């Protein structure tokens, strides 16, 4: 068995997160297309797009707030590389994953406002709006804490090894987290920050190399959210089972996305808040009785 030093381990995990996340996004588009009776792009199309954008002609809009316009794209990558370190590399605290997610919302907000585009600015407002609904969904952490007595990922995995997967004991919390996952998927009913009514939302004016860079971070983010779901609610899995789990979750998400329209912001927020309330109250009721 090859023992990697810490840096090599981190590099390998970031690379895996990027490649698997990209292919899962491609798979999602493929499944959505087949459901809608279209041939759809190849599964590796998202990955190819990401790489292609790096060599496309790029320029920066005059209305962009430089250097913030570029720096905010790097911020998204900083936080998701940090999430990879907290998650698969060290098995650290779930609270740090929550912090990463909260900063992701701030990045959506600031990427929109820094571009100077009205579409970006509308998306920036929607990012704040959706944060009001998605952050309560992350209250799932409190439920996990009450169920397991820890926030540490490794200890949650050990807890499940003796008590069975948490998805059976706190199913409503798993549904809440799944809704959170769904909110981050492209074409999701809750993807109001990237609704097609505002072109590409906060990414509208980030094209060329910066779009490719954002796509790398988003692929890592998707992989990480799936990884956290599987680790927290199913338990420690082998790499193959992680992959199977991720494919299944991405397929379910693709099915939902293909068959539902993007909700308008009010409906999206109300649906998420309602689910959060049902999830929190219901989970505490299950834990108490």
């Amino acid at each position, binding site marked *: 068995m090859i023992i990697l*030093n810490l840096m090599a381990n981190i590099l390998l995990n970031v690379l895996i997160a990027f490649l698997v996340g990209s292919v899962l996004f491609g798979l999602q588009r493929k499944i959505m297309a087949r459901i809608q009776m279209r041939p759809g792009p190849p599964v590796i199309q998202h990955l190819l797009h990401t790489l292609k954008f790096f*060599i496309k002609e790029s320029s920066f809009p005059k209305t962009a707030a430089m250097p913030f316009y570029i720096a905010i794209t790097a911020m998204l990558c900083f936080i998701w590389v940090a999430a990879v370190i907290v998650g698969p590399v060290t098995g650290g605290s779930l609270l740090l994953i929550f912090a990463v997610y909260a900063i992701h919302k701030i990045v959506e907000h600031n990427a929109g406002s820094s571009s100077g585009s009205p579409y970006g600015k509308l998306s920036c407002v929607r990012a704040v709006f959706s944060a009001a609904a998605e952050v309560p969904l992350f209250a799932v952490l409190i439920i996990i804490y009450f169920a397991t007595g820890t926030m540490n990922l490794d200890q949650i995995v050990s807890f499940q090894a003796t008590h069975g997967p948490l998805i059976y004991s706190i199913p409503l919390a798993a549904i809440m987290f799944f809704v959170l996952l769904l909110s981050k998927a492209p074409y999701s009913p809750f993807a109001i920050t990237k609704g097609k009514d505002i072109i590409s939302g906060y990414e509208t004016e980030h094209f060329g190399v910066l779009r490719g860079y954002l796509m790398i971070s988003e692929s890592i983010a998707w992989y990480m959210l799936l990884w956290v779901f599987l680790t927290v609610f199913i338990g420690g899995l082998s790499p193959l089972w992680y992959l199977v789990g991720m494919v299944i979750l991405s397929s379910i998400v693709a099915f939902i996305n293909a068959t539902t329209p993007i909700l308008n912001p009010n409906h999206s927020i109300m649906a998420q808040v309602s689910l959060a309330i049902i999830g929190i109250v219901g989970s505490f009721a299950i834990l108490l009785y």
Partner: protein
Amino acid sequence: MDKLKVMSYLIFIISLAGIIYALLFSPPNWIVYAISIIFIPTGILSLGLIVMKRGPEEDEEDKNREPFIGY
């Protein structure tokens, strides 16, 4: 070479050097975390800024012209 290119090359070289240092010398964990969180993203971004295609100089004016921004 413009300012952006020079900066990109500089950041790319620093990022690469940081990553190679952490790979070869295995410094304390917190230094490796800091190097990873900062230099992996800056390395990718600076590489992107180096390899991206720039349009012809004469088109620059057209691209920078104030667009209609709706208000």
